[in-house]
């Protein structure tokens, strides 16, 4: 069973399914993420040590650092990246990282932009299906 949660804006098209990790705080892949292990490396974050590998990573918006693109592209190359990203406000630096991974390795992850209201509906542990082709977001419910 899947329940349609909301529509969103497809920033990078693609379809993915995974368990959500939701951060209420803004996030930077440069400096807060270990691309070698795929875990959150900021000791001040309450998600410290949490693995993002293969997860649907949900956070409101990016904290800026110009290295984000390179770190995300590297994480995608090493298969340590989330399987999808959901943001309220999508940082172009993030998008460029995905585009470059696609150009180099033909590997990509979908990015979906959602409203603040939709963001509030999402919780760590939710089983989500992201359709960033049609711009739709589903929650999968155990039968």
């Amino acid at each position: 069973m899947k329940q349609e949660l909301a529509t969103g804006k497809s920033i990078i098209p693609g379809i993915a399914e995974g368990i959500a990790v939701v951060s209420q705080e803004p996030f930077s892949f440069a400096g807060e993420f270990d691309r070698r292990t795929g875990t959150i490396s900021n000791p001040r974050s309450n998600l410290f040590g949490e693995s993002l590998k293969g997860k649907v990573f949900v956070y409101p918006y990016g904290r800026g650092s110009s290295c984000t693109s390179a770190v995300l592209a590297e994480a995608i190359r090493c298969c340590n990246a989330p399987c999808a990203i959901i943001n309220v406000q999508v940082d172009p630096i993030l998008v460029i990282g995905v585009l470059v991974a696609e150009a180099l390795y033909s590997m990509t992850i979908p990015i979906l932009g959602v409203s603040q209201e939709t963001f509030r509906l999402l919780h760590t542990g939710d089983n989500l299906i992201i359709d960033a082709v049609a711009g739709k977001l589903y929650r999968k419910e155990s039968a």
Partner: protein
Amino acid sequence: MRLRDDERKMLQGYHGEGVAIAMSVMVKLGQIYNAEEMIPISMAHIDGCVYTLGQAALDFAEKLADTGARVCVPTTLNMGARDITRWQEFRIPLDYAQGCQRMEQAYLKMGAIPTWTCTPYLQGIIPHFGEHIAWAESNAIAYANSVIGARTARYGDFADICAALTGRVPKFSLHLSSHRRGEMLFKLPPANRIDFNDDSLYPVIGYIVGSIALDRVPVIDGIPKNITADQLKAIGAAAASSGNVALFHIIGVTPEATTYEDAFQGKEPVDIIVIGEKELHETHTRLSTVEEGKADLVTIGCPHASFTEFEQLNRLLARRRIREGVEFWVTSNRVVYSWLEQTGLLESLKSSGIKVMTDSCILSGPYIEHWGFKLAVTNSAKFAHYAHKQINVIFGSLEKCVDAAIKGEVRKSET
């Protein structure tokens, strides 16, 4: 987004695969921002040329270079991860140096100028007022937009070289006059209450402004007109570290803020922040992780030191030698370095025990881990901000840095 014929041809591969990839990245960037069209740029500064970011960054540079793509505007390079001529002296491992070299070669093959500095504006290849450029490196972006009045968005890794290869950027962000309007007003205490000759004041002001403004455009009021280029550099670097400040105005100083009305484009600020002496003092203190200790690294030149800063350092050293066991590193670029050689300043600094590192940056290479530094003393808020995670830091004026180097320690009463 509307594309002109020549832009569409780039996208379709008429100019090779590298340019096509670069154009597709630029077009996507424009689409996300709902840009109506592209605009030509006349200069680029590349930040993605540092070999610390992993294999993907190297793969991207080599892939573009291998397609034969070349930059179509004058393109300067940010610092890399090693001092290209003296890397062994700074204990860079061979395999790491080889990685750096591949990265350097890729960007040089694409026709970039080997400036290797985060302060391209200190060595002569600079834009003019109102010129559209694509610069990366947050302190350089802040300086170009704010002090020179050139126009660049916050470009980062990959987008920077894509702009250099296509000579185009989306018409968005700080390229548009409306986005350059001041949004928040920061008021400083009067000149009789704070010491504007204290060089540690400027990074502190920048740090406070950045941490409150985040990505809005701050306007600072109350700074003396005779503020120096080094002090402006320190404000921008700090504001771009604690926040995402890419443009700031200083009333009566920076070119788009000759008056209050100019700075806010005839509108009113959305917020007015009064910075008191207390906040200045607290922020100064907060930039240090400890109050005292035995210093094993003293470092200035973040962003890269100007010739004037070397002169001040030499004057403060007054021919004294720094203490055994302390490393004193100044990071800068080769243009400034050649001036140090020509004037004899380099010899003087060396005889005091100072090491000058060019082409590189302590935080961009594996220096701290390879030297095992525990406590760094610096006059840079940017260095203090980013070094926190790796090492203890004490922040202070240039004079404090010199004092720490001579004594080999900082005592609480002195910080």
